[in-house]
């Protein structure tokens, strides 16, 4: 979940409300699916839960939602002037970093704090939404230092300019090798022969996206009231949406937005695009479908008002239903239900009276769980203590320490070897209990019923429920485990028989395959001293493990 840090004072002044206090604010934040993470003095940390709403990952976005809910829609980025600035994209970037969006913002001069906040939003967008600048990354410049048109071209690694924060010219490859930012993002350009470069008609380099701006044109200071903003990246939609969000933020701050025409070469599917783009996603829902989801009568006028408070650019209704146009900074509306949720949020969940489903349904236990319950109760009655162990464990515990014949399924990307496999047997878990419980009063009779993962010959894996039981104490022997499985089978009127078996886990001659009603169902034996030794267990032990389903009878 994205977390952001905002200034209280900034948030409430932009939201046009008085500071409501944290408790009230928590309620208000439900508008943006947000929560207060921490609140200290002027500094508020917010957690935003909607991963599809990058527009909300900044103070401007949260403030905008509150402001519009109180004052109605604000029609962002409508009626922009005709573009009189242009960017030309050269061929050669299609496979490198194909897309660019840009605009100018004039008339708002950020102070140092506001400028820091602006840079912060740009970084946050590039980091989370833009996948660490891969799919999209943005940059700000002083507009007046740039001579239009600007070229977005594929440049040789030997091209050089003075990068931001440095004094001497460096080649692009030197930047990747010698600067910290360069090393951080070098992997984005790995394997490419030519790298992206923005430069103006006068040959001045603006930046080497997505790595570093130039020291001469790419530096913005507090008080600069004429800004140029560009976003480049590998995903069309991410690039466009990032630019649109930044433009809306600057417009909210008081800047006038001037669009820029982007000219693409062959073989791009589009020739020219004016950015920032207004996606203006249009959604239609019938009043009936809205009422069906809401479970409440609601008038078209109320729906219209609710959506206007969510900053919908336009909301109309006719006989067919409601047609809404989402605000330009959002692209998360992919189905009418998304608009319906906005209606719900706008009206507030507390305005809906909870109702119980009226239709009758039967409550039923899963049959295998019924069986597990029966076995567990019998075992507890036999004086056994139930154990619960994790499903993830290590190969060393299953194979090396316990000498289990079958191999467990491995995890391809384990976090640690300690949890590197999925268990295929419960016995190692019980042995681990013994190895850590020498100080607990004996004798120990312990058991677990639990899921394991096994693999069939066709490579398909199966989740199975096993039942394992272990007795450990000074006098524990084969008979202890045998009498427990014996009484279990007796209680369930199941025929039990044993057939000698060889199994490294157990002492030869004291190990058997358990046959229940004629089917091989598990194994029983006295644990081999070598196994006990591996686990550091200093008392004899016997155990059995069966497929739970065998107890069905």
């Amino acid at each position, binding site marked *: 979940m994205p977390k952001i840090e905002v200034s209280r004072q900034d948030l409430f002044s932009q939201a046009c409300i008085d500071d409501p206090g944290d408790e009230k604010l928590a309620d208000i934040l439900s508008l943006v699916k947000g929560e207060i993470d921490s609140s200290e003095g002027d500094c508020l940390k917010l957690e935003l839960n909607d991963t599809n709403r990058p527009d909300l990952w900044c103070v401007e976005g949260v403030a905008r939602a509150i402001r519009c809910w109180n004052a109605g829609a604000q029609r962002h980025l409508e009626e922009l002037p005709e573009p009189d600035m242009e960017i030309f994209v050269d061929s050669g970037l299609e496979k490198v970093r194909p897309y660019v969006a840009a605009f100018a913002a004039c008339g708002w001069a950020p102070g140092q704090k506001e400028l820091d906040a602006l840079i912060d939003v740009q970084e946050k967008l590039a980091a989370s939404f833009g996948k660490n600048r891969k799919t999209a990354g943005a940059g700000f410049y002083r507009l007046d230092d740039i001579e239009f048109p600007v070229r977005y071209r594929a440049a040789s690694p030997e091209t050089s300019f003075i990068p931001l924060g440095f004094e001497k010219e460096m080649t692009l490859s030197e930047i990747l090798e010698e600067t910290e930012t360069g090393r951080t993002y070098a992997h984005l350009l790995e394997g490419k022969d030519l790298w992206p470069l923005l430069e103006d008609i006068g040959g001045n380099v603006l930046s080497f996206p997505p790595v570093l701006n130039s020291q001469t044109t790419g530096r913005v200071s507090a008080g600069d009231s004429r800004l140029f903003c560009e976003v480049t990246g590998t995903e069309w939609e991410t690039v466009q949406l990032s630019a649109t969000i930044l433009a809306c933020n600057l417009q909210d701050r008081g800047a006038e937005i001037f669009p820029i025409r982007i000219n693409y070469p062959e073989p791009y599917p589009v020739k020219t695009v004016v950015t920032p783009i207004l996606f203006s996603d249009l959604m239609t829902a019938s009043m009936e479908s809205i009422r069906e*989801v809401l*479970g409440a009568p609601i008038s078209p006028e109320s729906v219209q008002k609710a959506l206007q408070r969510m900053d919908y650019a336009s909301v109309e209704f006719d006989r067919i239903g409601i047609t809404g146009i989402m605000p330009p900074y959002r692209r998360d509306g992919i189905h009418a239900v998304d608009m319906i949720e906005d209606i719900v*949020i706008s009206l507030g969940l*507390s305005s809906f009276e909870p109702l119980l489903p009226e239709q009758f*349904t039967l409550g039923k236990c*899963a049959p295998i769980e019924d069986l597990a319950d029966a076995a567990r109760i019998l075992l507890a009655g036999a004086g056994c*203590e139930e154990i*619960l162990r994790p499903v*993830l464990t290590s190969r060393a515990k299953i194979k090396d320490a316990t000498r289990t014949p079958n191999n467990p399924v491995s995890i391809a*990307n384990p976090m640690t070897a300690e949890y590197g496999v999925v268990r295929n047997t419960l016995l190692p878990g019980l042995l681990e209990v013994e190895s850590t419980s020498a100080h607990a009063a004996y004798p120990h009779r312990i058991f677990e019923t639990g899921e394991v993962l096994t693999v069939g010959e066709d490579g398909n894996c199966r989740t199975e429920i096993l039942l394992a039981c272990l007795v450990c104490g000074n006098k524990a022997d084969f008979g202890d485990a045998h009498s427990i499985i014996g009484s279990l089978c007796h209680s369930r009127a199941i025929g039990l028989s044993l057939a000698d078996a060889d199994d490294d886990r157990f002492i030869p001659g004291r190990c058997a395959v358990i046959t229940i009603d004629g089917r091989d169902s598990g194994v029983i034996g006295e644990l081999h001293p070598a196994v006990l030794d591996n686990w550091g267990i200093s008392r004899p032990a016997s155990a059995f493990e069966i497929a739970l389903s065998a107890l069905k009878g």
Partner: protein
Amino acid sequence: MTEERDLHPLEEKLLVYLEEHGESSDKEIIERSDLPDEGSFRRAAEWLLSRELVREASRDEEEFVELGPLGIANLEAGVTPELAMLREVAGGAGSLQDIQKNTVFDRGRWGSAFGSLMKTGHLIKDASGIHLSCGPQETVFQKVWDLVYEPLADGGELKMARLPEDVVLIINDRSPKRGKSRAEFTVNVVVTRVLDITEKGSVALRAAKESVTIGAITPEILADGSWRHAKFRRYQLDIPPSQIHTGRLHPYRQFLDTVRKRFMALGFTEMRGSLAENEFWNNDALFMPQFHPARDIHDVYFLSDGIKVPPPERELEERVAEVHENGGNTGGRGWGYSFSREQSLQTILRSQGTALSARTLASNPDIPGKYFGIARCFRYDQVDSTHLPDFFQVEGIVLGEQINLRHLLGLLKLFAEEIAGASDYKFLPGYFPFTEPSVEMHIFHPVLGWVEGGGAGLFRPEVCLPLGIDVPVIAWGLGLDRMAMLAMGIEDIRDLITPDLTKLRGIRVQPDRLLTGKEDENA
């Protein structure tokens, strides 16, 4: 009025001895009476004293001194630090630093010897250094050596009463009750008590001798009917019972059992699933785009090559792929990317219980229907006091023609009240990729305040339609580990699955108390 308790056999033995021998010390009784051991004697004596059948005729306390660990070290050195220091000064040493050059004792012991000699006035310090106020031979420390160390050279103890007063003062000062391992002396108190039978005791003994009382009832007593003419000895009933380790179900499993029972009582059918899933069922069928961050290699465990889960039917898979790519027949526009079949079939460990719901929806469920399942899920986290390698989630769906948002809220209200036992809760808009609208419930816990009580929503049409469901479906899910910790009173999540039997035996079992600790009214 309660009847006077009969004499316990041990009590009777003690009274018999005192009746015969008159006033006797504890030691005599322990050595000569029929009482089996010292413990039995002490218990019988306590009981009888409290019932005034026996009285304390006299009580003497005598103190004995023996050498403590430091004393023994001094003995081995052949001198105490104080005496050694006095001799050093007599021999011309003028400062503590000079004396500390002698390594018979460490600097600390020299330091404390210096302190006590200053305190007793045996040493005087002035501008020219330190001096003796009298000869070493005349000091109390020489007396201590002669009267205590010498006689105890071969071990044993000395009666304190026979020692001169100034020596006793030194001993008392250096025999702390605590920190005996650093003590120079140990003082032991020996109590000599003399007991005698009282008038009341003689009466009780006579009464006991005249009647037959039965202690343990034996099959013989039952068979021969001798109990008909006998008295039953009255037992003392409020003594602590001896402990037994019962077989018992695991506290967390009992908690899960309670959750299961409550859902079944509300008309839910239990679902079961698989630990391993392909991404299709875990994510794709739930309309989570293949580029969703929660599907990243750092969030999900992938199983090693060659391990498979059977693929979904081809037609179903195509419907789901289409919905991802362009919305299919759902009326939406989809995520707008190219769906990868290869990714869809990758085998992973189930990361969310919702996979169970997806499979249930695809297998012709009852309509109307209510389903729940408790599923072990896996997420890529470092194991610590708040994260386990796998965790339990309860998950479920409710389907029906008339289902809507208000039913969703009603169901959550029911969970809060009936499953969690909460008296206060609130609903907040939430976000889940597979539901719209989405709701999060927060529950008020009396100690912790607001805690998460689960997420829910109406499944998106992009989830339901490809799976063949054309009625609204409520879906909800809740992690149970944290709720169990609250109910079980544990603070480290790893204790839920502890391999330590002692710890496990110490975890309370109160499955009828769920999240808020409210007791089941029917319990």
